[in-house]
């Protein structure tokens, strides 16, 4: 039986989490390789639909991470993002989409270790939850005649 290798997409902000992930690397910390990182100027730029697009394109799990509140490079981008996540998460859950598959986080540029822990924990969770086959079934064009 082949082991399920989860596909995880991470939407991260350039100034904090991306730099933090960089630090993880330069510190030679090892962590789960299943994550594909997509860099944004700010979490405020992350359109909620991007998360669903990631699932539709085969992601089993998602990480969304940026600067801690009050530390946003653009002052308030992450505050706007936080409001959006609160609402979007509630909607996804209501629709029966498992929000345990989406991990939100604040990881600063100094938190190389936290990034590694975050990815490892997420990969572990997703491995337990299994492939997101319910969503992938949608991707296979159900409803097309």
């Amino acid at each position, binding site marked *: 039986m082949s082991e399920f290798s989860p596909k995880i997409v991470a939407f991260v902000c350039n100034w904090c989490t991306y730099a933090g992930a960089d630090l993880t690397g330069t510190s030679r910390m090892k962590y789960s390789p299943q994550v594909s990182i997509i860099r944004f100027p700010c979490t405020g730029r992350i359109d909620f639909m991007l998360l669903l697009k990631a699932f539709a394109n085969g992601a089993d799990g998602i990480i969304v991470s940026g600067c801690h509140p009050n530390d946003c490079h653009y002052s308030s981008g992450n505050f706007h993002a936080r409001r959006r996540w609160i609402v979007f998460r509630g909607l996804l859950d209501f629709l029966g989409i498992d929000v345990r598959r989406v991990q939100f986080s604040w990881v600063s540029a100094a938190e190389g270790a936290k990034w590694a822990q975050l990815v490892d924990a997420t990969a572990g969770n997703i491995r337990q939850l299994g492939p997101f086959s319910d969503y992938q079934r949608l991707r296979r*064009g159900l*409803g*097309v*005649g």
Partner: protein
Amino acid sequence: METENKLIRRDALEKLFSQWLAEGKRILAPKKCGDKIDFAPVQTLDEVSLDQVQTVQSPKTAVFPRVEELFSFKSMDGRVQIRERDNDALPETVIFGLRPCDAAAFASLAAIFTWDCPDSLFSARLGKMTIVGLACARADEYCFCTAVGGGPGATQGSDVLLTKVSGDEYLAEILTAKGRSVAQAGAGLFKAATAETKESHLAKVEPAFALDKITPALAAWFDDAAFWEEQSRRCLGCGACAYVCPTCACFDIQDEGGVSGKRLRCWDSCGFSLFTLHTSGHNPRPLQSQRWRQRLMHKFAYMPERQQVLGCVGCGRCSRACPVDMNILEHLRAIAEAKP
């Protein structure tokens, strides 16, 4: 071909269903979907809903699905491979329990889809379809089939037309070669008909307007912007009317995927504000009044002129589905009676 009349009881109809399924056919029939009634695949006659005046959506989905794959493509080594649909794999289908207006609508659809070149998917689906219609014992205020050349017991478009003549028995008019195969394959299930007339079992639908007044009136009022504005002011420009309509055939084409993917055809509506938007940014129909006028012109002037068939069968679905009561019958009457 001369029509043959037979009788079939409800319990025999149930057996006919089993036979169709055993032949590998898909049966589409009106079925309760939530609190609405729509065409859906069924296995037994019990699942079928037969007392409603009309379903929400039309059976055009069987020949013109709301989303349809035209072909798939794959880009490899600098070349694109295209995989066409396998028409043979399309399901043999029986559409059961549709009204005479719906049966007549297939001719309008065919006029468009086989106009200048035959649409292969449409033609294949229509070819694989057997149409078992059900005449109407009831009509409502939205029906106007008799004004547009149809009627509650009209046979045009059906392969077999059933009319309920008693509590558990139907008159079955065998109308076409396909109808004859149905009767022959279910030979033990049909009985000879006595001289049963169906008129007394049909709804009475007085013609709601004079059709021959409509086309000239449309031409006469075409340039009167205020006339169309008054009619269409409450229209919201959604696609409900076009999508539930059994004859509306406008479609959009969307490619989905990237390096590999599919070309899809899906429904579109001339009521949408950007329906006629050009790539240049110019929109020849920027006002809802122009789009409303176009809907009526298309169905009652352009199609009769070009395809010699009306684009409307008087089923009334658009009026029932319209969120703001743009009752097409009311508007047609107004057009027929409008004084210049």
